[in-house]
């Protein structure tokens, strides 16, 4: 029994320690972010890598999610005789919720895990150590550009996801089922609010971008410098950031859409 308690206490304190390290690491990234912006091509290269890597999966998933929304939405709406509202339903679900959340989940498993694996391997093969010996700070040169690359890519990918989703909803709703094209678009335009819906969606995807990138670079940098260490860290990146995204989504939604 005491053993169990001691074990539990140990688990809790070690988790807390790690959270503390992660927070300090977060501050260090900001402290050493000068290089990422002074030498913008370093960051843009990471935007390119994490963005392009996730492009196909984001576009295809967006299309399918939109098509499913088209089917399900039509099925529900036509019972109340308001099938023309399909455009609104598809657009709002995507822009407010599914775009940022699903894109972030995909981003975490595609780009986040890749970032963790890359940094972890650089550590395991002493590349970070070598860089330090060359008087180049690895947080400034390797970590911060990847962090900012992820933060910048995320809203762009979420927007792309939503756009593909709306297109998918259009394909199913208008082209396949035959909902009136004019009202599909015009109702969408009239109802989707820039400040309430689009800006809030962008804020969400930005926050998710920070979460995924932070978890990914921290897990990589903190990985045990062995093959198992890196593979464990990669898994933790996906699990931790997915849970954090869903939790943050609830909090953000509660804050943003209260009373609407």
């Amino acid at each position, binding site marked *: 029994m005491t053993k169990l308690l001691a074990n539990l206490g140990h688990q809790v304190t070690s988790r807390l320690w790690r959270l503390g390290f992660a927070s300090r690491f977060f501050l260090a990234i900001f402290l050493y972010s000068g290089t990422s912006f002074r030498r913008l091509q370093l960051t843009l290269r990471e935007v390119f890598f994490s963005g392009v890597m996730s492009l196909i999966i984001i576009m295809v998933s967006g299309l399918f999610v939109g098509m499913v929304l088209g089917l399900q939405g039509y099925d529900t709406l036509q019972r109340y005789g308001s099938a023309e509202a399909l455009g609104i339903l598809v657009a709002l679900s995507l822009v407010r919720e599914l775009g940022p959340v699903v894109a972030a989940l995909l981003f975490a498993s595609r780009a986040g895990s890749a970032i963790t694996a890359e940094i972890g391997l650089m550590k395991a093969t*002493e590349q970070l150590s070598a860089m330090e010996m060359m008087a*180049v700070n690895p947080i400034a040169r390797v970590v911060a550009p990847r962090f900012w690359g992820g933060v910048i890519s995320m809203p762009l990918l979420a927007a792309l996801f939503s756009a593909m989703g709306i297109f998918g909803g259009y394909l199913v709703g208008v082209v396949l089922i035959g909902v009136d094209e004019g009202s599909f678009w015009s109702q969408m335009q009239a109802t989707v609010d820039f400040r309430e819906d689009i800006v809030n969606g962008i804020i969400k995807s930005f926050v998710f971008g920070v979460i995924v990138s932070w978890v990914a670079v921290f897990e990589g940098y903190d990985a045990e410098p062995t093959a198992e260490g890196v593979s464990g860290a990669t898994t933790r990146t996906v699990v931790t950031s997915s849970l954090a995204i869903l939790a943050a989504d609830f909090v953000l939604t509660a804050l943003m859409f209260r009373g609407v």
Partner: protein
Amino acid sequence: MNQEPLVQIRDLNFSYDSRKILSGINLTIPRGKVVAIMGSSGCGKTTLLRLIGGQLKPSSGEVKVNGQVVHELSPEALYAMRRRTGMLFQFGALFTDMSVFDNVAFQMREHTDLPEELIHDLVMMKLHAVGLRGAHNLMPSELSGGMARRVALARSISLDPMLMMYDEPFAGLDPISLSIVGVLIRKLNDALGASSVVVTHDVQESLKIVDYIYFVSAGKIVAEGTADEIRQSKTPYVHQFVWGEADGPVPFHYPSVPYGDELMQAVN
């Protein structure tokens, strides 16, 4: 020229957690000289280099480089010191996301404002010195182990350092590249007016090129001397090492309970 040795190590102790790795090390690297550190695998040679480079902090004692105590330097001063030191890592540690050329150019681009044409010429010169000018477009994954180490060598000398540290520069090289790299280490040292530490197992090769040799065993310096003194030495440690005998005072096994006891335990 300043007569004070470039590196002075006094009563250095170091432990990982509770395991003592180095104890009471005293060692000097005079300016302009090439010093070898030899010892069996796992005796703490790489650890010693990391202590000189300031990546580890001593448990007690001190390492002085160019008159400054390394573990007391501010981060800025430490980085300033590291700009003037080069280190060849045991496993090369090339940046795997950059080509051979970019690896060698890395420090020049990070620390200087040299124009790209000049960097190109300098990089080609360094690669020529290690015989790999033709390989400048390859990625590290396309190199053999020995080639990677030579590229790493070219990278570590890219800013003409005052102190060079080589961790096993001869491992994995064929006899020809081995003696070329040996001569290169000596020549670079003399041409740059630098000082060098070479950590190595290769007794014969290093006897040809180094000025002074330290033998480390179980975290202590057990013998030292010039190349000639070492060749003639009758000390059992040195004799065993120079002639590569398995039995002798140099322990081959990682410390553990006696093998017999372990077998008995398994039986019980």
